[in-house]
């Protein structure tokens, strides 16, 4: 790196932060400031593969994220060195596994700023965590006449569990609608909340619209009426700093696989006293204190909700993922993604056939864009982009009611993470334009 280059000096003068910055040399020999993606891409082995002879451009991060070496290594290390069951043995391996498993729980607690790691319950994924609350708390606290407020933008996994509980208890489901900008309609929410409201269950960030919902205000109003609030943080935990004490939500759920961790592991955060008051969800080993043939007493938190041998390696690897994200800094991740989002929208908006759903920058929003592109159906688009190595999602993204609401049969969705680059966005936009032209060429 030649620190004397004129361009470098120019950039240094412009940014004024050159001391902390690192620079990379591009193919053309020009130095440019190193972005977050430039620094982290070497950590993700999969980002270096090819698809159909082209470098992979992975833009399906809202479905699942890729995994860094640190996480893959945590899995391998566990199975190579201390694989054994947790909380069940006095031998060395079991105690190492238990320490790592419980250590990961503490990392997650810090990551969301929970008051205690007892408030973190491991689950298979966000879906299972929501079902835990629905069956444990919902079935024993909801009754006919009660109201549960959801939104029309919810993922099926924050919809179906409540439909099932409503059918069993007679509670009524109500749905917050969207503003004209396709965001959470707070005015409508205010009109729905009342003394009968027992629960508000809402996504923090919509996986389709990309809007960031005003959780603190939602919680504040719900609590005035004594209602509990569950936050589906699947699309926020990977991208934003989270503070459950500041949000004051009663529960929060997330899936590890969307935040650099393996599949098969996620978590439920719940306020300690609330979790204490909830009956167990699944019964079995691990969640008990004293067992008799006819009845039993249950383990203290968090184990009361963790029946059976858990996903030990996955939980430990989730801890590694949390370390990885924390080392980068969630603020930095959000800031870099905001820059990418602005860039993505600038480019997309220039294509006349493209219609984008959800709020647009400069509004703070998630790094994803759901859109339709004229005559090119999202499936056809996705197949075409795949031929260029570009992975996007096409379909209803598990938000069928929302798609009905916005009157789109299906949409295409490009969703970014902190390892994506502006160059990848350029590749995506060029292929998108090419696909639209390919379809249009037939009848022009």
């Amino acid at each position, binding site marked *: 790196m030649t620190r004397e280059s004129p361009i470098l000096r120019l950039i240094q003068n412009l940014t004024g932060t050159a001391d902390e910055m690192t620079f990379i040399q591009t193919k053309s020999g020009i130095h440019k400031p190193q972005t977050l993606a430039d620094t982290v891409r070497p950590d993700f082995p999969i980002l270096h593969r090819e698809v159909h002879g*082209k470098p992979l451009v992975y833009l399906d991060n809202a479905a699942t994220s890729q995994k860094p070496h640190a996480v893959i290594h945590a899995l391998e290390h566990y199975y190579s060195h201390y694989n054994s069951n947790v909380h069940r043995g006095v031998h060395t391996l079991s105690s190492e596994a238990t320490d790592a498993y419980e250590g990961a729980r503490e990392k997650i607690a810090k990551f969301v700023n929970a008051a205690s790691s007892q408030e973190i319950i491991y689950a298979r994924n966000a879906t299972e965590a929501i079902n835990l609350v629905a069956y444990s708390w919902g079935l024993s606290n909801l009754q006919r006449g009660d109201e549960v407020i959801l939104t029309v933008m919810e993922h099926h996994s924050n919809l179906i569990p409540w439909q099932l509980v409503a059918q069993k208890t007679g509670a009524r489901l109500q749905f917050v609608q969207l503003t004209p900008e396709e965001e959470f309609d707070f005015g409508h929410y205010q009109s729905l909340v009342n003394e009968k409201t027992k629960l508000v269950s809402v996504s923090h960030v919509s996986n389709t619209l990309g809007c960031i919902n005003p959780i603190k205000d939602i919680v504040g109003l719900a609590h005035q009426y004594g209602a509990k609030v569950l936050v589906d943080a699947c699309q926020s935990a990977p991208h934003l700093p989270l503070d459950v004490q500041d949000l004051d939500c009663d529960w929060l759920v997330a899936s590890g696989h969307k935040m650099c961790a393996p599949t098969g592991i996620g978590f439920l955060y719940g306020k300690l006293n609330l979790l204490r008051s909830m009956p167990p969800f699944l019964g079995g080993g691990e969640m008990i204190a004293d067992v008799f043939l006819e009845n039993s007493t249950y383990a203290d938190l968090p184990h009361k909700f963790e029946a059976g041998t858990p996903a030990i390696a996955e939980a430990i690897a989730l801890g590694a993922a949390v370390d990885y994200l924390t080392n980068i800094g969630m603020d930095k991740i959000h800031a870099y993604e905001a820059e990418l989002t602005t860039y993505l929208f600038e480019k997309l908006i220039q294509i006349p056939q493209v219609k984008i759903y959800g709020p647009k920058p400069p509004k703070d929003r998630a790094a994803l864009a759901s859109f339709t592109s004229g005559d090119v159906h999202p*499936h056809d688009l996705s197949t*075409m982009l795949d031929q260029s190595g570009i992975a996007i999602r096409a*379909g209803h993204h598990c938000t069928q009611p929302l798609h009905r609401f916005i009157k789109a*049969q*299906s949409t295409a969705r490009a969703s970014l993470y902190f390892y994506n680059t502006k160059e990848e966005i350029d590749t995506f936009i060029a292929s998108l334009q090419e*696909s639209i032209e390919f379809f249009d060429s037939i009848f022009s």
Partner: protein
Amino acid sequence: MNTTNLRDLYQQVILEHYKKPKHRGKTNPVDRYQKGHNPSCGDTIELTLQLDPNGDRVTDIKFEGEGCAIALASVDLMAGALVGKTIDEALDAIGTFQQMMKGEGEFPKEQRKLNVMKGVAQFPVRIKCANLGWHTLKAALQMTGEAKLADFVSNEAEL
């Protein structure tokens, strides 16, 4: 884009049937009605059939609904090829189509127009798109009794 593969998949004929379908609408009268969908993507079509008075020959096939180019071109081509066929002939053609999607065999000369769908076999994730209309037709043909607002048939169990 890797256009050679894509041109195999999106042949001119396919795009023409997608953009200017010949069999959109509802038959009159509606002797059979069947909805079909792909739950994973949300694509939905509604198929209506007109049968001859004996009920053993399909005299008209129409469709409505939304889907990708592959799904809609496939159902439009199907309708064009199978109007006038007996129910047994239509069921045979469905079998041939589904074999072709597995990369096995193709249609004989008289129905060779349908062979433009052959390229889909190279795109395994898109086979269920191509099959949507055919699968729905199969359910409509095998339906017993009156035309009714039948439930959706899902196109995923079979593949």
